[in-house]
Each structure stands twice: as structure tokens, then as C-alpha cells.
């Protein structure tokens, strides 16, 4: 695991632990979730899953290269593409908010054969758009016990506006 990824994930773990302890002390209070926003590493990812053929989007398949979900930086995405919803690969659509937390994938760019860290941030506070492309790839993904690598959770969870809208894929560093 690279130093940058280590740093990103350890930051998430640290925050997670500190928040959990704080949460225990503040049991019953309902404002913790909202306050958690902004404390994390910036970025997010997300991931609801709707019907689609996961095999068609499977990382490594030849067919994948032909579609948006097969684009190299989408190797671990789980979400609807913001680029089809008024945003872009790296920008949320107007009127939405960027998730305060995200998860990270490590994807290989075939042009230089280097591994890059990709932050999958959800954009929040608006309805998801079923007509946009849904991608679901899980390279390096882990269950909730590795929260920073988990893509089956709503990463808008730490925002004031928790509704899931779409997902962006932001290259945040080199994984070497």
C-alpha cells in the first residue's frame, strides 16, 4: 500500500475511532452526523447498486474498455456518473454538495502503466438520476471493516444533505 493511500486511510481510521469515542460520550445526541462532515479526507465515493450487468463492467474485461464504466479510473467505482448529470469526472452537478468523506481506489492507467489513487466522491443533496449510467467495479474493494475501501455505503452520510446524487472519480495521487 502506498504512503499516500496509507495516509488517506489512516486519517479515515483515526477520525473514525475518534468520532466513535466522541459518539459514545454524546450518546443520544443527533447532531453528530452533521458535525462529522468536513472532518475527513475530502472526497468520497459511494455506492448504491441498481440492476445492471456487473459482468459487462467487470474490470479487466475487453468489453469494459468500450464503455464509460470501463474507463481506467473507474476501476473501483460504485455509482451513477456525474458526467452525465450536469457535472464531469471531477465536478459535481450544480446545486449539489461534495461528500465530506470518500473512499479510495487504486487504478492502473494503461497509457503509462502507473497506478493512481482515485477518490470516489459522491455528490449529495439531490435525487439520483436513474437514466444516467451506473457503474459498479470493485477492484481492491473491501467490506465495511475497511471503511475507506468500502463502496456499498452512502458516502453522503457525513453531509448535512445526505441524499445520494451521483459519483465523481478524482485522481488524487500516484500510488507509488
Amino acid at each position, binding site marked *: 500500500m502506498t504512503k499516500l493511500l496509507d495516509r488517506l486511510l489512516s486519517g479515515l481510521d483515526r477520525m473514525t475511532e475518534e468520532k466513535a469515542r466522541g459518539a459514545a460520550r454524546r450518546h443520544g445526541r443527533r447532531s453528530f452526523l452533521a458535525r462529522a462532515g468536513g472532518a475527513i479526507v475530502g472526497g468520497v465515493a459511494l455506492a448504491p447498486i441498481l440492476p445492471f450487468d*456487473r459482468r459487462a463492467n467487470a474490470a479487466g474485461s475487453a468489453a469494459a474498455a468500450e464503455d464509460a464504466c470501463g474507463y481506467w479510473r473507474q476501476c473501483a467505482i460504485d455509482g451513477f456518473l456525474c458526467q452525465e448529470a450536469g457535472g464531469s469526472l471531477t465536478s459535481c452537478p450544480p446545486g449539489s454538495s461534495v461528500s465530506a468523506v470518500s473512499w479510495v481506489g487504486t487504478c492502473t492507467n494503461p497509457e503509462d502503466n502507473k497506478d493512481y489513487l482515485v477518490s470516489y466522491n459522491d455528490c449529495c443533496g439531490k435525487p439520483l438520476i436513474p437514466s444516467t449510467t451506473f457503474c459498479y467495479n470493485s477492484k481492491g474493494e473491501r467490506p465495511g471493516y475497511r471503511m475507506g475501501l468500502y463502496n456499498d455505503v452512502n458516502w453522503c452520510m457525513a453531509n448535512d444533505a445526505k441524499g445520494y446524487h451521483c459519483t465523481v472519480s478524482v485522481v488524487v495521487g500516484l500510488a507509488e
Partner: protein
Amino acid sequence: MKLTTALTMTLMALAGTAHAADEIQPETLTIEEKIAPGPNVLVMDFGMVGSSPVYVFGNEDLKLKGNIGTGSFGQMILSKDGKTLYTVSAYLERYVYGPIHAVVHEWDLQTMTAKREFEINDKFAHVESQTGTLTLGDGENFLLVQNATPATSVTVVDLAKGADIAEIPTPGCWTAIPAIEGRRFSTICGDGKFASFTYEADGTFSKPVKSEQIFDADKDPLFANPLRVGGKLVYLSFGGNFHVVDDSGEAAKLENTVSIEGGEWAPSGSEVMTYHAASNTIFVMMHKGPFDGSHKNPAEEIWAVDASTFKVKGRSAANGETGIMVTKGDAPDLYGVTHMGTLVKYAVALGDEVALTKAAEREGAAIFPALMQADY
């Protein structure tokens, strides 16, 4: 038209109306009191924006009997007697933004009505419905709710009080798997160990008791949701290795690890396995040609595995399932939900060889079928 003619025609029309009314019985609008009789399979349709409905299908022909309306990001668990469905879900005041309310519902399955509802703290995880994130502990007296903010913790809900009584920090860990007896649960952690906790009715709880190393989350991660097989917990790794964990002591303990011997096949899916106690059989969703990231691929086959020897005793064609669930009894049914929203019913032939045969299917059972339960 003369006035007299018009009056005559009007009277004739009224007479005709009265005559017709005499010939029919006015219909009465009613509400069905209960769902149609018979065993049921429940499918939760995970909702990101709006309700996560729970659809109830009859076991014979998968006919829809009705649904139950929870909030967003729903989790569910059915009581052992099959009569009461517990759900936790979120209600956003403005649907996609605004203050959030986490609500526990206690539904009567037969009448499909809420017997009770109450709010708990709003940290519960907005995560794909799964078996380990909402569980019943201590003889169904307590609900254990997985939280994620993304800090992870477990909310303990006292069902007698109708209130949450504790929030137990479980940093780096996921799920709350209740012990067979007592107010205890264990959770799987990213460092490869398990953490076990006890809690009391007064809201106090123990410090975590960590296990020795049980798995390696980097090299061969475990699917987070286990099966209860006898007194033990059975986990399965992405690479197809069963991990038998004894959670009866203060600390969880790894008993043994056995490979499914899948060769070029590996397990995958969301609810990746299910257990039939009467025949001591574990059913596992499998796909061919695994690679990094294929652990959620739809099933290409469903394998039957002896839960004592872990030998494969049957391989059957699958239909792209992402979750499976087998019912109880000597003649079980196995249900699958596919990535395209179809509910599939399989007949199960038990014996030294176990085989599945598709017996029925219902397309469009749900948009995002995430979890199943059955009352038989």
C-alpha cells in the same frame, strides 16, 4: 322542444335510472385484513431516495401479496416465529436533504401494519441491506444496529423499552453478530481480528475483547456476513476459504480453515451464502475466473457444501444472483435475487448429491433487491 315533451323525457330517464338501481347491488369498498394465507418470502428493495419497500411473495407461485413501506436505506430482520418484521430506516425531512430521522418499525407481517415505531439515534449505516447490520440479540429482546458516520459503532435497542439504550464504539469493525446466549455480540475487524462485547439492560457495556489473528484483510479478505452453523460462525473468504469461528467464549477463536477447493471458481455476491440446518448444507454463489474486484459478480453456479466436511456435494446452474436464501424444514426452497431484479425459486433435491432446479421466477420483483427473509 316543447316543455311538456322535455319533462316527459326527463321523467322517463329518471325512471330508467331507478329501474337499473333496483337490479344491482352496490359494491362495498373494503380493505383486506390480512395477506393471503401460506408461507412467504420477503424481498427488501433498497431505496436510496425514498422508501425501501419490503415485498411479500407467496412461496408457491411468487404471487405478490402486498408490501411494507419503510424509509430510505432500509435494513430488516424477521423474528424467529416469522410473525414480526423489524426494520430500521431513515426519513429525510426534505427527501434528499434536511434533518434525518432513524426509525425502528415493528411490523405485523400478516396485517402488514406497524405495531409500533420509535426513533433511535440517527447514525445507523446507510448501507446495502445485509444480515449482519441489523440483528436480534438476547432472545430477541434487543436489536443491534450497525452505525457508520463513517465512524463505526453499534446501537443497542431495548425492544421492551422501545428505545436505544447504548451506542458501543466498534472502530474499524463491521456487523454485530449476536452470541447464541446472553447479551453479547462479536464483530469482524479490518485488522484481521474479531472484537466481542457484552452489554447490559441498563445501557452499560464492556470494553472490546479482541481475538487472535483470524484472517488477513489484504491477502484473503472475508465476506463480512457469516452463517450461524450449530454453535459456531462460518465465514467465507474472497478466495474460497471457510473460516469456522467459535464466538462462545470471551474472545472469538478461529477453529479451522477449509478451502472450498474451487479451482478456477470463487465465491461472489452480496449475501454470498446461506445455510440449511436440517441437511447441514451450505449453499454458496460462485463465479468462474475470479480477479481482483470480482467478489461481487453475479452467480454463475450455486454450490452445495457439507457444513461439517466442507466437501462440495453439488453444483447447479445459477441465474445471475447477487443474494441467496434457503428456507427451513426437510423440503426447503432456495431463493435467489438477481442483479436484474428477478426473484428466482429453486427446488432443492437433498441427499448425498444436492441439486437445484429452477421452479419459478418473477421478473421485476424489485429495483434493487438487497436482502431476503422467509417465514418458513
